[in-house]
């Protein structure tokens, strides 16, 4: 796992989804971030940088 998600902090705003260049993420039916396809992740860190809720981190 290169992405670590704190679901309790996530408010499902969708910013990480919109800024992910590789469509790794989606907002689930319960309005939380979910990983669609981690194999595409290039660890660019856009999700971590833009998340206002400290809910997603890229593990180096």
């Amino acid at each position, binding site marked *: 796992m290169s992405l670590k998600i704190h679901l309790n902090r996530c408010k499902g*705003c969708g*910013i990480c989804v*919109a800024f992910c260049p590789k469509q790794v993420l989606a907002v689930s039916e319960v309005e939380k971030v979910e990983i669609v396809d981690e194999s595409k992740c290039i660890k660019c860190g856009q999700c971590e940088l833009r998340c*206002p*809720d*400290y809910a997603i*981190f890229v593990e180096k």
Partner: protein
Amino acid sequence: MSMEELIDQYFRPGRLPHIWCPGCGHGVVTGCIVKAVDKLALSKDEVAVVSGIGCSSRASGYLDFNTVHSAHGRALPVATGIKLADPKLTVIVVTGDGDATAIGGNHLIHAARRNIDMTVVLYNNSIYGMTGGQYSPMTPVHAKATTAPYGTIERDFNVAELVKAAGATFVARSTSFHAQMTTDLIAKGIAHKGFSLIEVVSACPTSYGRQNKMGGPADMMKWQRDHGVPMVAYEKLSAEDKLIKFPIGLLYEVTDAQEYTEAYEALIAAAKGGK
């Protein structure tokens, strides 16, 4: 330190999730503050964070420093008392557009005038968010708010120009999209000896965005990306573009102005010397 470690290090345990709405830019800005403090390797014990009242001002409660959630508009007087009474403390003021430029406007210009060493991070979401979306002195003219249903006819403050004219010696602007720049400017502002203000254009999707049809959280962040232009590039824009975009980065800095608490130490030395 990784971002996750930074959050664990500088946020108070058990205080997250924060109260801000989905997509609110304030979380990003608050993250930038802790990154700046970490960059400067300051001890948590020597940092005081003082806020007023409003959405932005809730940041103080999450941060593991010496923190004050003061009264509406009054962060700067309280911060002034802290800094003057104990100049060893690094003082950061967290405030919003309404808190700093409406009810606290008088304190803002006078803290700038004194050039007292503190760093104001002004989270500008262009609205009174906590009370449900009324216009502030920094709501752009013609924008809608619950108290300006036909669009506000009031001209908005350019807070950077305001505090510069009042005597601030470090003035900068960034956005919650330009997170790395924001961190860098806050760190520089803290390192600067004197009154520094960093306006950070933040996003309020719940109220300002909705009332002004700006789309969702990601759209508002993209708007920041497309409208905040680094100073050098901004200067080269057409007059038309200058009206709809705004300059970001370090806008103004003076390094040789007398800082207030240092001046006071000199005054004490003179008074004790019988002068």
